[in-house]
């Protein structure tokens, strides 16, 4: 290898490693903090690596009043959001991908605009409406606004996914004895499944991470982020660190599974044709 090329490659790796460290070190530090014994959190100067590995901080966090309950709520809300979002968004994505009809472009544009809109803020007026409807402080209520936030993404992602399943395949199934719906279930759905799973995970993460609307719309039935946010000022540092870390884990986990589909959400390289 020539000298300039070697130099270039070395620089590339140095740059990439620097960025990677910038991303990873904070995650590493919060992980460490969460497994540092509570009293050492306040030590001065704090050693980067704690004297001993301890589950006490994590245990304290999980046993704190309201945490387990809010964790359960978070999971339920995320699952509800996922179900609502796919049930409502996937058919629309399918329609946009498969058919050309009047209003198709208008619909897509509307979806793209709602994607950019600060939807979480709508929790403020929704709180008033939800009180009337009996949805205030319910998990369904939170899931509904989370769905409103995730829906544009779901439509865009599923559009891309279904565009990736050739129309021919479904038509072939129809000529072979399937109804339109049967063709969808037997051919389009299995082929779209990995993509749909990624869309589902992405939706889950949106809901899992959302805090503004969840806090506004609940009082007793807090989700985990809402619970942490509302108790933050009164909580010891180690509670906050453990909470931060705990909220991060599933996100990292899901990111791993949806990494192939990341570019559908914002990029649209595959969603557009």
């Amino acid at each position: 290898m020539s000298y300039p090329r070697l130099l270039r490659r070395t620089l590339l790796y140095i740059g990439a490693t620097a960025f990677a460290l910038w991303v990873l070190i904070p995650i590493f530090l919060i992980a460490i903090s969460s497994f540092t014994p509570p009293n050492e959190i306040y030590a001065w100067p704090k050693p980067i690596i704690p004297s001993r590995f301890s589950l006490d901080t994590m245990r304290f966090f999980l046993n704190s009043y309201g945490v387990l309950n809010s964790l359960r709520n978070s999971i339920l809300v995320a699952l509800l959001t996922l179900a609502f979002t796919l049930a409502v968004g996937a058919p629309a994505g399918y329609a946009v991908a498969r058919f050309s009809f009047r209003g198709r472009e208008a619909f897509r544009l509307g979806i793209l605009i709602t994607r950019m809109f600060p939807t979480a803020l709508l929790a403020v007026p929704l709180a008033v409406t939800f009180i009337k409807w009996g949805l205030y402080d319910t998990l369904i209520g939170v899931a509904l606004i989370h769905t409103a936030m995730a829906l544009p993404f779901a439509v865009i992602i599923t559009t891309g996914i279904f565009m990736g399943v050739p129309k021919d395949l479904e038509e072939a199934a129809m000529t072979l004895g399937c109804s339109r719906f049967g063709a969808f279930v037997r051919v389009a759905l299995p082929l779209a499944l990995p993509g749909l799973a990624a869309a589902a995970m992405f939706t889950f993460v949106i809901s899992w991470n959302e805090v503004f609307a969840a806090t506004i719309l609940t009082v007793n039935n807090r989700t985990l982020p809402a619970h942490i946010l509302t108790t933050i000022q009164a909580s010891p540092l180690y509670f906050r660190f453990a909470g931060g870390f705990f909220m991060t884990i599933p996100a990292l986990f899901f990111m791993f599974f949806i990494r192939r589909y990341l570019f559908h959400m914002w990029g649209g390289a595959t969603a557009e044709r």
Partner: protein
Amino acid sequence: MDVRLRKLLGTDTLLPYWLLLPSIVFIGVFFLMPLFNAIMLAFRADNGAFTLDYFKKMVADVRFIEALKYTFLLAITIVPLQLITALAMALLVNTGFRGSRFFLYLFALPLGISDLAAGLIWLSIFTQHGFLNSILYSLGIIERPIYFISYQNTGLTFLAVVMAEHWRATAIVLVILVAGLQMISKDYLEAAEVLGARGWKKVWYVILPMLKPSLQSALIIRTIFALQTFAVVLALAGDIIPVLAGEAYFWHFLYRNSHVASAYAVFLMAISIGMTWFYLRFLRSRMEVIRG
């Protein structure tokens, strides 16, 4: 399905509309209606009369100007920082060196991390006995902890928020830019190389111009989101740094005044829409920008 039923529902010709119906209804009920209600709440008193009182109350609040200032300061500092960082990352990954996919995945990791969690993560660094102070002390640079986060040091506190938000949300920009780069046909790049454009020249004269729509769309999206910054600030800086979304939250949550909270929400949405309009007005290729 029975032919008659099919005809009645018009599934043959109306099928796409049936499929869109749920999402249109949903957007109507959980997007357009609350949007309308927000405006109603912000402009209408409980007796139904039109009023500007809530907006006056909002503006008269001592924290409003501060919140406005910090919200804009945050957006103005974070967005360019993120664009530059993400562009550097994207170009780096785009060279396609061995392992670049892996690095791309690493770079994109914070995409899945919530703003609240990001705030707490950086709190562990910036807090009084946090990692940063400990390291600085160990290196002998400081004698005693610096109060990064305190009312006395709002400048440093602000910087801490900027770092946390920069760290968290660069990933979105990165994803948009990488997707944009992937759409640039290899042919152009090869043609450029044949014509003698290498290295930085290629980046400057070929890649960047073609990446413009992606850059613009990242700019818009990030600006709008930066205006909503909330949990990072709250987790990291409590109420030291007021921001608009935080004020909406406080008015709703602490003062139980959904009118003023709505006024904040409407104000924020109006700024977001105004910003989008501003960008679309002054940047070219609008549709591509919205499309991302």
